[in-house]
């Protein structure tokens, strides 16, 4: 799942015929001033300014300002840019026109196993959260397109009548077209409003999640995906992502500050069981990591270096199930090289290393790990006869 910020999200909706307010995305107050000269709506209407970053609770953080004139908006842009929230620095502000309206509605499209669900409610904004029973659903099977009758029926079920029901049906149809054609996984417009001037339905806010795996068929996706957990990626995370994009197989790395148990497990499935085992034994994870699909040894070495650089770690869990085709000797070769490098740099003092693994060339790989003891590593090596997550128990001294 890949999150897309409001600006590009709005852009995709506009592409599929949905009305969105006029907006500009700026990275300096001067740029905003130039744009104000070019656009009437900036000089004449009321404006909203929002920090254009993957941040929750922007309102509370003072990163949303409403009812501004051009000068006020410029001041807001200046005030927001450069603000530091956690690891994210505000580098863009989206300024859009305020759309005068009386009522707010809710329309969304969500991916389901069978296809998608179109959701609609005749309330919007924060009201919809507390009135979830008012949200009505229409299921659409993959490969199908909802008929206008079905959409209108949904609108009517959600409490819309007459002309408005037809308009909501039309809006939902466009949102679905956007969802279906853009390989979206979730699209939410909250609120949808009827513009006072002409009654046209306008999307005031957009949540857009796209299927990153489908990027190959969307050459116009020229935007970056936003980090999904409310912070920017760290330098080390980006470095591992860079390696990941270049290799056969994969390496993954996410830092979790404050943890003391570092993870260096193999396999997308087993890695989560190892994390569970650590948490269940009261350990604090210092990271999530994973290598799989028989990656080259140098990629595993890079990952190992990053894991060894995590501050304050006491244990490293080099776990893994019995591999199908990942060469244990080769991938362990990468890990061993990473360990040696870290040790030479004075890292790994007092850090215990726990290994459990099986798979092609397991004996050679495990023997090589065992031999690290002679180089002064505090390493404990187990084979397939030790259950998968026992090393986590041993590391945290519960067994």
């Amino acid at each position, binding site marked *: *799942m890949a999150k897309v910020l409001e600006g590009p999200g709005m852009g995709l909706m506009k592409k599929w015929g949905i009305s969105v307010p006029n907006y500009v995305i700026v990275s300096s107050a001067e740029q905003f001033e130039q744009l104000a000269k070019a656009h009437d709506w900036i000089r004449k209407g009321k404006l909203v300014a929002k920090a254009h970053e993957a941040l929750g609770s922007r309102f509370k953080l003072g990163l949303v300002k409403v009812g501004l004139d051009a000068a006020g908006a410029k001041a807001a842009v200046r005030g927001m840019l450069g603000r530091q929230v956690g690891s994210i620095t505000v580098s863009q502000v989206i300024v859009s026109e305020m759309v005068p309206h009386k009522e707010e509605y809710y329309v969304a499209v969500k*991916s389901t*196993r*069978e*296809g998608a669900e179109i959701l609609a409610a005749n309330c919007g904004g924060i009201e919809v959260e507390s009135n979830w029973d008012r949200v009505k659903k229409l299921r659409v*099977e*993959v*490969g199908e397109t909802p008929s206008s009758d079905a959409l209108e029926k949904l609108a009517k079920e959600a409490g819309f009548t007459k002309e408005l029901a037809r308009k909501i049906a039309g809006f939902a149809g466009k949102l679905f077209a956007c969802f*279906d054609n853009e*390989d979206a*996984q*979730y699209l939410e417009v909250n609120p949808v409003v009827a513009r006072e001037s002409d009654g046209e339905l306008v999307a005031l806010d957009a949540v857009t999640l796209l*299927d990153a*795996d*489908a990027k*190959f*068929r969307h050459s116009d996706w020229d935007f970056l995906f936003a980090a*999904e*957990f*409310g*912070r920017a990626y760290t330098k080390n995370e980006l470095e591992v992502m860079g390696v990941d994009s270049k290799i056969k197989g*994969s390496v*993954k790395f*996410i830092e*979790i500050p404050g943890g003391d148990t570092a993870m260096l497990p*193999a*396999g*997308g*499935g*087993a*890695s*989560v*069981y190892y*994390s*569970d*085992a*650590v*948490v*269940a034994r009261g350990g*604090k*994870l210092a990271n*999530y990591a*994973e290598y*799989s*699909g028989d990656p080259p040894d140098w990629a595993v070495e890079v990952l190992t270096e990053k894991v060894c650089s995590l501050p304050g770690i006491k244990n490293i869990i080099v776990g*893994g*199930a*019995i*591999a*199908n*085709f*990942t060469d244990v000797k080769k991938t362990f070769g990468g890990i061993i090289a990473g360990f040696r490098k870290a040790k030479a740099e004075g890292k790994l003092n007092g850090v215990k290393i726990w290994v459990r693994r*099986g*798979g*092609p060339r397991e004996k050679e790989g495990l023997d090589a790990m065992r031999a690290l003891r002679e180089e002064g590593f505090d390493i404990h090596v187990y084979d*397939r006869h030790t*259950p*998968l*997550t026992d090393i986590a*128990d041993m590391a945290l001294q519960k067994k």
Partner: protein
Amino acid sequence: MSILANKDTRVVIQGGAAGLNAARRMAEFCYMIKQPLNVDAFVYPPDSGKTNEVPYGSGLLTIPVYKSVAEATAKHPQVNTSLVYIGADRACTAGMEALNDHQIQLVSMITEGVPEKDAKLLARHATKLGKVFNGPSSIGIISAGACRLGVIGGAFDNLVACKLYREGSFGVITKSGGLSNEIIWICSQFADGITTAIGIGGDAYPGTDYVSYLEKFEQDPQTKAVVIVGEMGGDLEERAAEWCGAKKRRIKLLAVVSGFCQESLPKGMKFGHAGAKEGMKGEGSARSKSEALKKAGAIVPDTFGALGPAIKQVYEDLVKSGQVRPIPELSPADLPKLPKPVEEGLKTGEVMVVPIIKTTISDDRGDEPLYDGYPASELINKGYEIPHVIGLLWDKRLISKQEAEIIKRIMMLSADHGPCVSGALTTIIAACAGIGMSQAVAAGLIMIGPRFGGAVTDAGRYFKHAVDNKMSVDDFLAYMKKNVGPVPGIGHRVKSVRNPDKRVKELVSYVKSLGIPTPHLDFALAVEKVTSAKKDNLILNVDGTMAAVLVDIGFPVDSLNGFFILSRTIGLIGHWVDQKRQDSRLIRLFDYLVNYAAPKRREVPPLK
């Protein structure tokens, strides 16, 4: 019995290198269970019309590659299953092609990173046709003792360790490939092993979910219990729980779900599997899945580690109730074995091979070449030079500094002799005809023979014969006249006593200045004295001088031409590069340079 994959499963593999690798793994399994290879064909348009080689036991099978699934199934009417190893951008088309083939009933897709929409479309299409679509991101399907689809089960040793040569009583369904193998191993150690294990893939919307497979296992009398390995995200585990609790089921259900750590991790964090993510509103958490499964009557151990003992408990209950009869273990001697590649057998001392080549000079099996046992880098670092390498490779000895200096001078003196001599001229003609360096230089080298540069070995041979047999110059000349002809190494086309060859003078005076014993050179000079007195140009030429000196410093007769060949190669390469640099044009001789002595034009008589 088993589900999905059995002894009648015949496979077409859609894909290139990854598909071939899977076929090789599948052949190992087929060999283990003494069945013919279950892969009949490959489909890979870039290689269509070619064949792939798949080792089977100690032999090699040749499997055809086709352009389309339709072509493959037409040629192989028993094929009923397709494995898709095609890249994510073309996987959907490939999967549809397989599903639409009337022979294919099961399509399993290994491809990772397939767009969700494509996976859903494939699943829907399969359902409509009443076929099974497994995956994407599936490690494969394996039925013990019957059929392997994909690389699931790992290396051959692991297949044997997990007793996959015969069926047990446990079904396995996992999202993770690595964990499928782990559970197969656990089932073989804590119970009697598996019937069928299925990797459904870790994507958000696998083509076939747990429930469809649980239903199939329920209908398979051999399967007594099923282990599912789930993870947070989606609702597949909840659906499995619903199935389990809906009515009394024959099979026991055991389950573990991963992702409890999510509670203490940053929200929205992405794990290795695309499907492993909590829903917007906390649905699909590991905890809610575990609870749902427990409530439905499934056995849900608290940790993955507790799964083994739980499986053991279920197995023991099955044995106690008489539903399962323990299978006697094979003795180690009876376990299936895969023929080893010769290399491995050599390592373990199980086979002996008579080599067809023997070398006594060099070895590059280590991290650098060894010349007669000495590492090249060590020779460099200790100040040795090219003549020493020649000494090691041509005569298997470390020559002295003085000997090296002599060789160096010989090489420098004969590196080139202008463009007119046979070798250089040939190379130049070839270069001007646009011929590449190695061929053009080789053409020049071909000229080296009895009349040009190739007399060194023969000169050395006869001077040595004379010295060894203590012949006088007269005896020697008489011997040569009777048995050989002109003395090799004596005589020059243009040089003479009055116009001596400076190279010869240079070499002779240097070697003489060293004060080392030079019996062959001395003999050669004595011969020259006699021959040049008879005829002015019968002087000791550069070939003869080199030969005598080299025999004096101990080089074997057979190596002697090598000094001229090696040294002249420097010049020939120079001529080739020189012509290249000038971008020279094709050479054609002028008519006036040819004496046309052939018959004049005449009429061709009628053919008889």
